[in-house]
């Protein structure tokens, strides 16, 4: 198999399904064809798990005027694809009109494809095993405090094609590898964890994965209590800031949320959203990002979109339908989000491709040195993802934060609550860091210092 063969296969299935739809007298259809082959190997304290397989399926939207139906099937066999076409057609017939719908993509314009690495076709279970060995060798086996290790390595090649009865027939591919280490350190009954990961669209570096995870586990030993409840500045490491900001940016940039009046930033377009130092873009076309594709899942070319400029909210992110609803073009943000790694089972929604928060000038160490009393947050506190999307309130629990006193990290602290409000958080950015560590998530951010979080014990 080569990337060209893979692309041809996806396009052929999409094209065939378009022909089936015409045979069935379906007036308008969109065919989304997805395939991902992957191999995963993990070693959980000596327990090996290994799997491979190809996730394949087709998602079909049928339109009768503005009446829409969606159906999907796993696999590329003719009978279930035809079954899904009929089912989507049946649903469209009985559905009331969706006044927002503005038709399927009519053309096949593509942005540039991200980096593809054909060496990944040759990465098998044996190669992944060697990666795990190398990561494992980075752990100090003589340190008896390191009681548990969990390593994993994965390789995947995926792609999708979009075809419509209106004339679109386009495809996009991606490839990637990733590795992680998760380590538990124990001392005197106390437990501390550390993790680290690396990834790439090609072959990634294994350097420091095991070593970093074990160092992060060990530095959390010797925790002390935090007494009382205080409003304190908090310093968040780069990867942690990215995870933290993921939630407000997912809901706040949503074009569908804006149209449906449930976007908490809905009244802030062209208004001050954040401190003026904050600049944020959505970058769907950087060739090195894991999330980059030439087209979105409706067939619209990917692009860059400015979201926040000097603290002012400049744009939401749209797919075709929600962009049209407010007189805008799609920003190439139609993604089919859903659990289980089967995007073909979901209809497109407007979701960030890759949010990039622009860097500031201060290192993490500089930020810490400026804090008289505060908290260093090295990993995402538990429960932040459960924030209230309407009010923006969040309340979370951190078990591996550190107390900062007079510009120095003094000791790790036991369980604390970290509470605040996302709507206030962006106005409470005190410092934006100069570091921005790439992540596999749909957002990368430098470290940041925030004012105004309530810290309790």
């Amino acid at each position, binding site marked *: 198999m080569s990337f060209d063969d893979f692309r041809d296969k996806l396009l052929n299935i999409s094209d065939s399904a378009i022909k089936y739809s015409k045979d069935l007298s379906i007036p308008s259809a969109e065919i989304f064809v997805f395939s991902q082959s992957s191999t995963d190997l993990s070693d959980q304290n000596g327990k090996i798990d290994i799997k491979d397989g190809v996730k394949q399926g087709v998602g079909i939207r049928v339109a009768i005027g503005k009446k829409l139906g969606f159906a999907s099937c796993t696999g590329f066999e003719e009978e279930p694809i035809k079954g899904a076409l009929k089912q989507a057609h049946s649903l469209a017939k009985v559905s009331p009109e969706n006044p927002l719908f503005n038709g399927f993509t009519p053309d096949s314009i593509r942005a540039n494809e991200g980096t593809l690495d054909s060496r990944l076709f040759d990465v098998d279970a044996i190669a992944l095993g060697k990666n795990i060995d190398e990561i494992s060798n980075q752990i100090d086996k003589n340190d008896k405090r390191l009681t548990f290790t969990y390593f994993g390595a994965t390789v995947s090649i995926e792609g999708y094609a979009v075809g419509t009865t209106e004339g679109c027939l386009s495809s996009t591919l991606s490839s990637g590898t990733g590795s992680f280490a998760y380590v538990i350190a124990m001392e005197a009954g106390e437990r501390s964890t550390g993790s680290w990961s690396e990834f790439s669209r090609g072959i990634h570096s294994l350097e420091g994965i095991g070593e970093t995870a074990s160092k992060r586990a060990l530095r959390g030993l010797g925790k002390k209590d935090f007494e009382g*409840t205080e409003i304190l500045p908090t310093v968040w490491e780069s990867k942690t800031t990215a995870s933290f900001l993921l939630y407000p940016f997912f809901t706040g940039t949503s074009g569908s949320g804006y149209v449906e009046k449930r976007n908490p930033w809905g009244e802030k377009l062209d208004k001050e959203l954040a401190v003026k130092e904050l600049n944020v873009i959505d970058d769907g076309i950087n060739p090195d990002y894991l999330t980059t594709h030439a087209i979105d899942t409706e067939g619209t070319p990917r692009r860059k979109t400015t979201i926040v400029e000097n603290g002012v909210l400049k744009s939401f992110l749209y797919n075709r339908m929600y962009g049209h609803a407010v007189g805008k073009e799609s920003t190439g943000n139609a993604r089919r989000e859903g659990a289980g790694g089967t995007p073909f*089972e979901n209809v497109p929604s407007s979701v960030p491709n890759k949010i990039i928060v622009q860097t500031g000038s201060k290192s993490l160490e500089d930020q810490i040195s400026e804090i008289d009393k505060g908290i260093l947050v090295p990993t995402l506190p538990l429960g932040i993802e459960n924030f209230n999307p309407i009010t923006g309130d969040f309340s979370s629990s951190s078990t591996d934060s550190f107390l900062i006193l007079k510009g120095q990290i003094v000791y790790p602290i036991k369980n604390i609550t970290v509470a605040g409000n996302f709507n206030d958080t962006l106005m409470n950015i005190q410092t934006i860091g100069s570091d921005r560590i790439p992540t596999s998530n749909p957002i990368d951010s430098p470290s940041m210092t925030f004012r105004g979080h309530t810290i309790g014990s």
Partner: protein
Amino acid sequence: MNSDYIFDLLHEAVEEGEKNGAKFVEARFDDYQINTIDLTNDIIKESSSKRRRGTGVMAYYNGTPGYSFTPEVNSEGVKAAANRAAKLAITADPRNRMKMEFIERPAIKDKAVPIIKKHPKDYEFQDKLELLKRGTIAIKENVDATTIQGQYGEFYGEKYFVNSEGSEIYWVPIVVDMRVRADIVENGKRATAMDGMGQSQGLEFFDQERNSPEVVGANAGKWCKEQLDVVSAPTGKQKVLAGSTLGGVIVHESFGHLSEADFVVTGMSPIADRLGEKLGNDLVTIIDEGVTPYGGWFFPYDDQGTKAGRTVIVENGILKGYLHDRGTAQKMNTEPTANSRALSFMFPSICRMKNTYFEKGDLTEEEAIEMVGDGIYAISWRGGTASFDGNFLFNCSRGYLIEKGEVTKPIKTASLSGNVLELLKHVEGTTKNMILRGNFFGGCGKGEQFPLPVGMGGPEVVMDQVLVGGAQ
């Protein structure tokens, strides 16, 4: 699908795996139909119909598993998957330091089909849409909402299982679920509330008054309005009455996962090697069950073909057992508990919960509130997270102050956190009323396998020393 054809395919997979060197092979076929309707502001935002079918093959070589799968429903596809699974197991075996072979057991041949009065496949799309319309009308009668959303979901299908022992098992999963939600913006204040649940039943579930669209819609409307005038919960450690939903989430997320035996045999779980130890007080009994008298999900077999029974994890505070697959059970010299479950044919089965709950006690709801005295009545939650040292945090999205034994004012979103191993020592009582949910929306996450259907809920639980947090 023709069941004889599917069983024949699975037998071919088993034979192919064995022919390629596997010492034991399990093959399973899922054929699921998953239908949803999303009605937002009277517009059908999404109506979808998903068919998810395919074959997964787990091959074992010296106690090392290898897994592969295929969506192809033909001999060539399933044999190729079996071949790959066998080769993966053989390749991985030399590096596996925790081999989990298991003894052979007698073959099982069985069919398990729940009694469904109004199967969703026999009803039209419009019948289900009408349920949502009735729910949203009930919201409008109770609140002038900015956004009204109704979601309906149904999941049904067939599961087939064959293994090297000659087992042939067929069973039928099913669930129906309906949620309605109201959002409101009034004088710059925002609020949201939701009601509804699912169950392994047919559409007759919504004929019951508590689960009718009229009642869940009215609840969502009333609760949303109520959220416009909330007080901050007092922070710090205090007594909490966790409602059925929240109590179920706490026992599932913070304790249930620690009892999954794959985490136990590797030493990752903090309750590894602690069988027989008193972890909680005498009032704490925790159960995992496949088919319960209280409803929830219907899970008669797991994905290794083990018949599901009732597993006592904790009894009167003492750790009695873990949630096993066949390999972990053999390694720990005990019986498998039918907890080997997979999200779909695209994933290997791993140790997962089924319907997990605190055993009911003898308190009425009024007695439980009185027992709290001054504290929080935490009813609804938004998500939940727990870590492997037993720490947990759940956000209470609908809750009330309890003052002098009376429920008084609604509270702002607050977090409830603590360490479950401490919490079990501070359970002060459970109510005699039990609600188990078999939800379509949401589910359990472990690694990449989310959302796995699980039953959640239980009695209401009085617990002390819960850390309540929130912005002031």
